[in-house]
Structure formats: structure tokens, C-alpha cells
């Protein structure tokens, strides 16, 4: 990367899309992100259908929806489950390059395995403790927003 590109890169903020139907979990995650010291613009949608509309910029309110650099996905949601959403976006040539990290309370081996087979770029268990959530979010941010290169999805 040239210095100029690096500057542009650091000026553009990281964008994350959170797909989460539980208002409490969404709030805690946002709070943990702020406290863990990494900055990302977080948009929140409530289920898989809404997430698909957001990503495909479908519908009046979504025309200017930014392309996220990372998607954090709950599994257990009404209407369209997290696994179904994951399968759909990994089949979509325009969207499949966006990494999706599953954030779930399910410890089931079948959920873990299915998520990776469908293309998840990580499977995180929701911790019960807020301090653990902060340290989890810090590691997540250091991996995705400090260490790795992400595609420019604009």
C-alpha cells in the first residue's frame, strides 16, 4: 500500500453490520465495542431479511446503505435464521466477499460446523459476563480491523 492509500484507508472508518434480534444483546455489543477502544461505525438490523435488504440496498430507506467491512451475525432469529442468511449471502457473487462472524449463544457442534461449512469467518460464543464481552470484542477488532486486509466494498 502506498502512503497515500494508507492515509485514505486510515481515514475511512471501519463499518460493521450487526444482525441481532435481541435489543439487549445488540446494546451490550455496541457498548462493549465502545469500551474496548476500537472504532467502527455500527449499523444494526434485526433479522436476516432486513440484513439482505440492507446489503442489496433494496427499498427506499436502504438506497444509501454503506457496504459493511464485516458482518456480525446472531443465529437464532425470527423469519430468516442466521444460517439461512449466511447461505444466501455466500451464494451472492456481490456479497460473498464480506466476512461474516457468527456471534451466538449456541454451543451446539452442529451449529458450529454448519456455520463454517456455509462460509463463516469465525464463530464466537456470546459470553455471560460483560468484561469477557469487552475482551472478546477487543480481540475481534484487533484481528479484523488492525491485522487483516479487508476488501474495499464500496
Amino acid at each position, binding site marked *: 500500500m502506498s502512503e497515500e492509500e494508507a492515509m485514505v484507508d486510515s481515514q475511512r472508518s471501519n463499518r460493521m453490520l450487526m444482525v441481532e434480534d435481541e435489543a439487549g444483546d445488540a446494546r451490550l455489543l455496541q457498548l462493549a465495542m465502545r469500551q474496548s477502544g476500537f472504532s467502527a461505525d455500527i449499523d444494526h438490523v434485526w433479522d436476516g431479511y432486513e440484513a439482505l435488504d440492507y446489503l442489496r440496498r433494496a427499498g427506499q430507506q436502504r438506497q444509501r446503505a454503506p457496504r459493511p467491512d464485516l458482518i456480525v451475525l446472531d443465529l437464532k432469529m425470527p423469519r430468516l435464521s442466521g444460517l439461512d442468511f449466511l447461505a444466501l449471502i455466500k451464494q451472492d457473487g456481490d456479497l460473498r466477499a*464480506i466476512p461474516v462472524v457468527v456471534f451466538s449463544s449456541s454451543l451446539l*457442534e452442529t451449529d458450529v460446523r454448519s456455520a*463454517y*461449512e456455509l462460509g463463516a469467518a469465525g464463530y*464466537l460464543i456470546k459470553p455471560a459476563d460483560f468484561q469477557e464481552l469487552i475482551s*472478546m470484542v477487543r480481540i475481534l477488532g484487533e*484481528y479484523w480491523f*488492525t491485522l487483516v486486509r479487508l476488501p474495499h466494498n464500496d
Partner: protein
Amino acid sequence: MAIDSTASERPALILLVEDEAADAHLVRLALRENSVQADLAHVLDGREALAYLRREGPSFVAAQRPDLILLDLNMPRMDGFEFLAAVKRDAGLRGIPVVVLSTSDAERDVRSAYHLGAAGYVAKSSSVSELIAGFGRLSQYWLTLARLPTHGR
């Protein structure tokens, strides 16, 4: 953090696909410097990596399935992209996360890697201290934080 005791019985296994001996050496060094509790298997190109994963040939009969693959892109015989595509096409292997390690900064390469199913794209740093710090983050994410499939462990 929620760590399942059954999953931690044996250390994680990382498969490193890297043709440059010096780079492979640095990866070992970086894992050691970070006290990463993982075994490392090392193969030299994509074709050998596929043989390893499919347990083909006498040297790989007893090969263990890795929990994570670290993949160089620029290799002879079968390059990293071809290998990544082959793994993600294979229903028995596609669940293994593959992190690309590359010297290429080209946006085209980054995009292709994610498009093919990479679970991360790390630009190899020429600075050893940056490399060590990078492996610290990588192993924290994949080996401490993320739950990986256990495959009957």
C-alpha cells in the same frame, strides 16, 4: 471466555502451506514467541496440501485434520488461489478456515481471496516484530476466541 474442556484436550493443529523455508521458519518463530499452544504441520505447495488433507500417498496416511490453514499465495505447482478454491469446493474440507498470508497488497488479490472463501488476509510484514505481533492477534482470534469445529475430538 467460554472454553470447552473437551475441545482443549489436544492442542490445535495448524497446517502451514508455504514454499519459502525462511517464511516458514518465521511463522514457527512467531508462534513460539507468542507461546501459542498449537501443533504445526508444514507442506510446501497447494498440491501437497491437498494430498495432506485428503490423506493421499504414504506420507499422509495418518495426517490429522487441521483446525486452521495458513496459506501463502505465491507458490509453484498449485498456487494459493487454486488451492483455496479446491478446498472450498470440497464438502469434506470446506469447513476448515483458511487465512491467507501474502506479500501482495493488491486489492485484486485481497478481493479474490475473500471471494473464494478466505477467513482473513494478512499482509506479511517485513518487520519481524510486526510479524510477531500479527501472529499474536491471529492466534488470539482463532485459537483463544473462536469456537472451531471439533471433528470428534
